[in-house]
C-alpha cells in the first residue's frame, strides 16, 4: 500500500518533493532510499521540498532530522525547503524544533545553501548534529 516517493537529481544534489500524505511505512522507505542514493550517486546535498505538506507530526519531523543526520554521516548536507508557516507554528507547539535541520524558504534558496556549503567544504564541515 506504501507509496514510493521519487528521488530526483539536480547537479550534485538529490531532490525529493513530498506531494502526498504519506503513511509511516512510506516515510521509512524514503529515508532508506535517500541514504542509498546519496552513496550511489555520490551526492553532496539533499533537498526535501515540503511545500505541499499540510502537516508534519512527530513521526515525519523525526524523519527529517534523521535524514539530515544520516546524510551528514555520508558527507552530504540536507536542506528542508518550503515549510508552511502553519506547519512551523504547529511543530514548535508540538515540541519539536528540528534543531539539527537546515531550512530554506524556497527550492532556489535551498539549492543556493547547498552550493555555498559546497564551496566551503575544505574549511570544515558543519558538525554537532543533534536529533532535536
Amino acid at each position, binding site marked *: *500500500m*506504501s507509496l514510493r516517493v521519487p528521488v530526483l537529481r539536480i547537479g550534485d544534489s538529490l531532490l525529493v518533493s513530498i506531494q502526498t*500524505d*504519506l*503513511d*509511516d*511505512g512510506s516515510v521509512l522507505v524514503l529515508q532508506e532510499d535517500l541514504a542509498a542514493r546519496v552513496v550511489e550517486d555520490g551526492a553532496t546535498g539533499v533537498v526535501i521540498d515540503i511545500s505541499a505538506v*499540510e*502537516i*508534519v*507530526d*512527530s*513521526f515525519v*519531523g*523525526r524523519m527529517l532530522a534523521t535524514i539530515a543526520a544520516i546524510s551528514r554521516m555520508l558527507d552530504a548536507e540536507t536542506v528542508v525547503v518550503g515549510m*508552511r*508557516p*502553519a*506547519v512551523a*507554528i*504547529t511543530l514548535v*507547539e*508540538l*515540541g*519539536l524544533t528540528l534543531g539539527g535541520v537546515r531550512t530554506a524558504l524556497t527550492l532556489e534558496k535551498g539549492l543556493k545553501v547547498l552550493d555555498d556549503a559546497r564551496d566551503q567544504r575544505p574549511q570544515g564541515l558543519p558538525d554537532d548534529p543533534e536529533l*532535536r
Partner: protein
Amino acid sequence: MSPESAAGTTVTVAIGAAGDVVLARQSARNLALDCGLSLIDQTKLVTAVSELARNTLIHGGGGGMRASIVRDGVRRGVSAVFEDSGPGIADLDLAMTDGWTSGTGLGLGLSGSRRLVDSFEIDTVPGRGTSVAIVKWAR
C-alpha cells in the same frame, strides 16, 4: 466539502494499519474545513489527530476514531475521540511528560497534542484500554 462530514454527522475510522492513520488525518481535515477552522487551527487539529491515531495503532494495538462537528452555544468545533482496548497506561503522569516514551517514538504525542487542542481528556484503565477525546474550537 464532503457531505458525510457535515454538522451533526459522525465520521468513524477503524484504525488497524498505517494507512488508517492517513484516513484519520484526512477525515479530521474535512471536518475542520466544513467547520470553518482557520488554516492554523486546521493544521494543529490534524497534527494532534495524527499523533493520537498513531498511538491508538502502535500502543493501543488498534482501535478507532469517531469525529464530528460539535457546538457549544454559537461556537462550532471539531471533536475526535480515539478508543482502543489495548494495555492502557499505568502511569499517566509519566506518559504525559514531554519526551517520555515506552517505545521508540519521540514521546511528544500525548503532551504535544494536548498543547495543540482546546480540550484534551484521557481515560485509561490498565489492562482494559485507553480513550482520548479532543476538541478544537473555531475562533
